[in-house]
Each structure stands twice: as C-alpha cells, then as structure tokens.
C-alpha cells in the first residue's frame, strides 16, 4: 500500500528512528511502512494519523 509517510516525516525533519520512537515501533518498521513493504495494523495506522493530525486515508492510499 502506498503512503505519504516519508514525505510527512521529511516535512517535520524527523529521522526514521525519531518517528519510530513517537510511534512506539522499531526504525525497521518505519522503513518497511515507508517503502510499502509492510502495511500497518489498524491501531498503528490510527497512531500515525493522530501523530500527523490527519485522517488515515490522507496518509494511506490503497488505490495508488
């Protein structure tokens, strides 16, 4: 699934480790989500959406 996580992270000038710490996951998990190799669970998707103050569908797109 495509997503805007990398762009959103870059806009805030956060490293992958920093974002991972805020989301309570590993840096490897952030990397896998950014590259579309891992689709986050619903709870994690909500945490990501809340962190960026956006809706889930504004970050993740299953039609891209």
């Amino acid at each position, binding site marked *: 699934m495509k997503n805007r996580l990398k762009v959103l992270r870059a806009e805030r000038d956060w490293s992958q480790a920093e974002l991972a710490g805020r989301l*309570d*996951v*590993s*840096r490897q*998990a952030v990397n*896998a989500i950014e590259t579309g190799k891992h689709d986050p*669970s619903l709870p994690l998707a909500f945490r990501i959406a809340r962190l960026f103050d956006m809706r889930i569908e504004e970050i993740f797109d299953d039609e891209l």
Partner: protein
Amino acid sequence: MPYKPNTVGERERSNQFVVLWFSVGGAVFSFANLFIGMDNMLSAVAFGSMAGGPLSVAFGTHADEYLQSLLKTGLRWMSAVLGVYLVALFILASGDVANELGYAFGGGGAQREAVGIEALAMNGLTVAIALTLAFYAGFAFQWLRDRWDASEDE
C-alpha cells in the same frame, strides 16, 4: 514526564532485530556443526543463540508488528519443513511394511539402508536444528526481500 520502568523504546525494539540476526548465525553454525563437528563450547553458544527466535515468538514483548510479521514468515517456513518431514515419516513408515515383505523374499541390504535413513530422520537434534534453520531462513528471506524490493523502488 512520569517515570515508567521497563519502558520499551525504539532502541530496544530495533535491538530485537540484531538479536535475531545473531540467532540466524547460531542456526547456520549449528547446522554446519552437524557435518564438521566443532568445539563443544562453540556448539553451546550456537544452541543458546538459536533459542532467541522461538522464545521471541513465544514470550517476546519487545517485538513490534513488523518484526512479528517476519517471525510469522519464519514460522510458515518451519511449518512447511515440519510438514515435509512428517510426510517423509509417513512414507518411511509405509515403506516399512513393504520392506518387511521384501526382506522376507530378498537380502538384508534394503532393510539396512531403510533403517539408516530412518535413524537420521528420527534424530531429535537433527530435526530440531533443521526446523530452527528453516525458521531463521524464512525470517532472513523475508527481511532481505523487503530490503531488496525497497532498494529497487527507490
């Protein structure tokens, strides 16, 4: 900020990956050791490191959902090998019936060969190492495939 003992941070979660790669090395070493037979001390270290993955699956609290997905792939590979092993046991056990009949008619060569194969397949250490190696092979394969695909996308 309130003090939270035993809080699992990003570093602890990332370290889990390092621990598992150490375990992959232990599994490979133990498998090689079946054939070359190395020092007992090294074997003990390898067995200990191999335990990391299965114990992480059973009791781990530091694994995030991505690591769990990799471990799940490892479990699928291990399950596949276990399935093949059990089918092999079935065939060997079925073969015993045929062997016994054949043994009654022919010489003992086939019987001895069948017993040799069965002895290897029934060796608990061999089976444990093979299953653990399959587990780590699945884990490593999925991890490497993710890295490879990601590098191709960029």
